[in-house]
């Protein structure tokens, strides 16, 4: 499996316990629209993803992420460079 496919699968696995309605997952599944998650569920899920990949997904970044595919890309980017947003030292 490629790294992206690997990450995508891990994210889908993490979604499962929060997927109360049993929605079929794809790259374009949205968290708010399709999964109908409220803010508390989002928070618990984000904490789970952060712990799984040892990254921080700030609220600012979360605002840009709507689909499972976008989250996969964001996680890969954050894993590669936690300083991706670039802070001048």
């Amino acid at each position, binding site marked *: 499996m490629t790294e992206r496919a690997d990450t995508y699968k891990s994210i889908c696995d993490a979604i499962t316990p929060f997927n109360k309605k049993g929605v079929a997952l794809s790259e374009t599944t949205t968290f708010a629209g399709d999964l109908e998650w409220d803010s508390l569920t989002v928070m618990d899920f984000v*904490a789970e993803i952060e712990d799984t990949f040892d990254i921080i997904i*700030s*609220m600012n970044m979360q605002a840009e992420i709507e689909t499972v595919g976008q989250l996969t890309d964001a996680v890969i980017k954050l894993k590669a460079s936690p300083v991706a947003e670039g802070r001048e030292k």
Partner: protein
Amino acid sequence: MTDLFSKFDPLIEQRATLLATGVRDPFSLVMQRVLSPTEAICNGKHTILLGTYNYMGMTFDADVIAAGKAAFDDFGSGTTGSRVLNGTFSPHKDCEEALKEFYDRKYAMVFSTGYQALLGPISTLAGKGDYIILDIDSHASIWDGCRMGDAEVVPFKHNDIEALEKRLKRVPEGAHKLVVLEGVYSMLGDVAPLKDMVRIAKAHGAMVLVDEAHSMGFIGEHGRGVAEDQGVIDDVDFICGTFSKSVGTVGGFCVSNHPKFEILRLVCRPYVFTAAPPPSVVASAAVSIRKLMHGGNKRAHLWENSKRLHAGLKSLGFQLGTQTPQSAIIAVIMPDLERGAMMWEALLDEGLYVNLARPPATPANMTLLRCSLCAEHSAEQVGEIITRFERAGKKAGILAA
């Protein structure tokens, strides 16, 4: 035609449904007369107040009122200007001196409201590329401060020490960090494990800001709050708070020992771009703050009240927000908003006012009846409160009849 108000339709509908059940609107109560810190006339009825955050009962203190009246006479009714222009009168400086004495800090800034006292420092201190790490159950003023600034915002699970530490470890090396905590969380009345959290935050090189709004005046040896009580106040960089609770007026503050603190007066927008509080308000606050320094007996009585009410409600069978009394707030958990509103009205009919708190202000979508005790509640009043809770609980079907 589009209507900007259409986004509020779900809330409008929820309110209409609730009011259609015949229940009185819990969010538009008017007090016709306020008799003391613990009693008022509501809807023509003599009512015990148990939802005012007037923890130390300073609103009717004779010295506090006299100071306000004198300032009216000497300085007029308002400042009509910003603190950095024409809005700093000697009572404002004296109020800041009182805060420095109370907290034993070198610097103090007074804001027009408690909301601005959090909004201002948080949005100003943490800028682009900086990280704010905060408890998920933080007050709206803290969240709005985060939203107003440009920092990366990282919440962690409520009062979870490990969750805080994990996030601190993951912040990119070299980034500045601000950890924002509260001493007492106002919804459930639970206290934060500041001893561990502040130590961990400092170990990771973060600055720490603690909101002690709901602990000032009665938690800690000198009433400085939870950070003092848990022995970590000297490691806290900024303490923020409000005059609208224990102090008994309105306004807010931030105190610190940071040598560059004073520059905030020029860069903190919620401080600069608003009028300074009226001189009567800060003159009253200054007297109140200094009196709170010697409020040991009142503090002890407030704790007795809190313990007794907690034990009384628990033994009646109510579900409470905390297993033990941790502050002057006791939250009674309701099954849902409808029954919460019914219970709230039944209490009001009994002559007892509490706060009805509901989502999104509450954690985990809970509906709460939030009770806040006052040092001026007498032992008889606390007994009467428990009796009224029992009667209302049976009437509203929260307790078995």
